[in-house]
């Protein structure tokens, strides 16, 4: 995993994120004044735009946006910014997966890069969201951070995102699974992903520490 915050100059927070061959730029602008129809009287409004690596946004991107929104909304301190707007734009540079079949790697890249960009922007957060992709192979083996080839031959694919508060994974924010699996698989995936996300969280804190020290 490779991250670089402050990648863009004209936004409040940004991050260039890459994992294997998935690459995305996240940009956060906010809190800013919303359009009249977006304004919420008591809390921060959230606008998320996802641009695919190739072509124009379709229903596929709307679906990813919907999931990113579900994950990011609970991490923001929404009531601190009434009548304001936070705009998150995600530009995929490389999908890293066959787009007609999968969206898992891009979804995780979008979530993780948004978290880095949000911290970079300085918007108040209640916690951070970090996620990972896991596939279960034909031979019932779990593979974290799979490649496109792994995804294609997997029996089931899973995206898991946890909320991290006080540097511990506390709440399951998202689990999105497709394929053929049973309840044991679900719990195995949750267990494995918690370990992975703990590791991601360690990297995250390490990164932010060096960043603050270099200020």
């Amino acid at each position, binding site marked *: 995993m490779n991250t670089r915050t402050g990648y863009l100059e004209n936004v409040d927070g940004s991050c260039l994120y890459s994992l294997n061959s998935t690459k995305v730029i996240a940009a956060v602008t906010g809190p800013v004044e919303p359009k009249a129809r977006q304004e919420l009287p008591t809390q921060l409004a959230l606008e998320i735009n996802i641009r695919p690596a190739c072509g124009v946004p379709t*229903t*596929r991107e*709307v*679906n990813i*946006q*919907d999931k990113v929104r*579900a994950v990011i*909304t*609970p991490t923001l301190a929404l009531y601190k910014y009434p009548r304001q707007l936070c705009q998150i734009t995600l530009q995929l540079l490389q999908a890293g997966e066959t787009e007609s*079949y999968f*969206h898992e790697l891009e979804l995780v890249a979008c979530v993780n890069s948004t978290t880095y960009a949000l911290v970079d922007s300085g918007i108040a957060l209640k916690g951070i969201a970090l996620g990972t992709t896991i596939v279960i192979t*034909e031979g019932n083996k779990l593979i974290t951070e799979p490649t496109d080839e792994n*995804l*294609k*031959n*997997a*029996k*089931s*694919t899973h995206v898991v995102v946890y*909320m991290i508060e006080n540097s511990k994974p*506390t*709440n*399951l*924010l*998202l*689990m*999105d*699974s*497709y*394929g*053929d*699996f*049973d*309840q044991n698989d*679900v*719990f195995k995936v949750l267990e494995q992903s918690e370990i992975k996300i703990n590791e991601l969280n360690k990297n995250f804190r390490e990164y932010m520490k060096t960043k603050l020290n270099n200020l």
Partner: protein
Amino acid sequence: MTDVEESTVEVHPVSFPPEILARISPDLSLQRHLSLGFRPSSRGFEEFRDITINTGDVTRRIQSDDNSVKIPPNNGKQGLGSCVLKQGDVFVITQITGGIIEDITLSKNDMELEDDTELLEITKEHSDITKYSSVYPVVEINRGRMGACTDEEMTISQRLYDSLLHSHILTQDVLRVEPGVRITNEDGSVSIIYPDTKENKEITNALKPKKKWSYVLYAKIEVFGRTGPVYDMCWNSLIAALQSVKLPRTFIDERATDLKMTVRARGRNAVVMETYNLLCDPNESTNLQLRENSISYASTYGIIDLDPEADITNLENNDDVDEPMDEGLETKTVLLADIDGEAEETSIKSTISITACPNGRFKQFSVVGGGAKITKELLMRSITLSKQRSRDITLKVQTV
């Protein structure tokens, strides 16, 4: 002292009838209901809405004299399968339509499997996603106004497409078109030969065009009277409709099987074009072969923390006492099956959606945890309920 008394105004608590409270403060209204042990719809916590399923009714088939079901002559673009599903007050109407496209992207797999259907049987259980297919669903939620599709409609359509593809219910193989040949016999009569028997297969193979076609299926899903989240209803309706799909058989006239034409474009290049006139048989159709053990049905659950302060029984007990509410009161988390109604939809932030086969395997599993904490026990409970629900719906679809 008298001053104080004069300036004291007696405050009457404002009270609203339940239906008005539900509009102004859906959150409080829901909590009050839950504290009494039932939901605003007066269902129990783990009670589903009743579901009625009818398949094939909207499809344009006519009953002929010999009682066999036939597709009317002007078919081809008309509905191939359909389902009308009613859950609570919501109607979902699904119509399956189809088309035929030319397969120009023949992969190596197809070439190899050409004459080797046995090999295909062996590899049938293989999970390689490129062997499977999906339908193209368009979801329309009718709200009595026109306009561009909403994000919800787009998200549900995309989720249906993804779930269907990854549930491996449709193989590309069953959608392949096996055209028959229309032959004019010596006595001038016309007959259509389909590659069903070995003998016929030889004839059609001899006249077989080099091109390949496959069916492509579309689903138009219309939702009427939406009262809450509708993904599970759309999925159940789509799966029921797919089971009623009959694909029309197609044929080619023997004279057209290998027809080549020279086309002159702007007088410069002469290109040889092959044209085939693929026709749909008005009387013959085959059932769409779904992979039976992949048929699954969806259900939705919500998880919410009970707010002890909204508990009506507590309110009555502590009428005049101004005790700190938090003391001794535990927050309980409950699972609600089949979320419905405005109050439940807006107040419940943690949801679980499970697509399960009756045998207990899952095809899609999605958890969104923005609100109440989702514990292992709650997950287990929803899993158990989803399997039961899936078995119930299977029975309903089978009895249609």
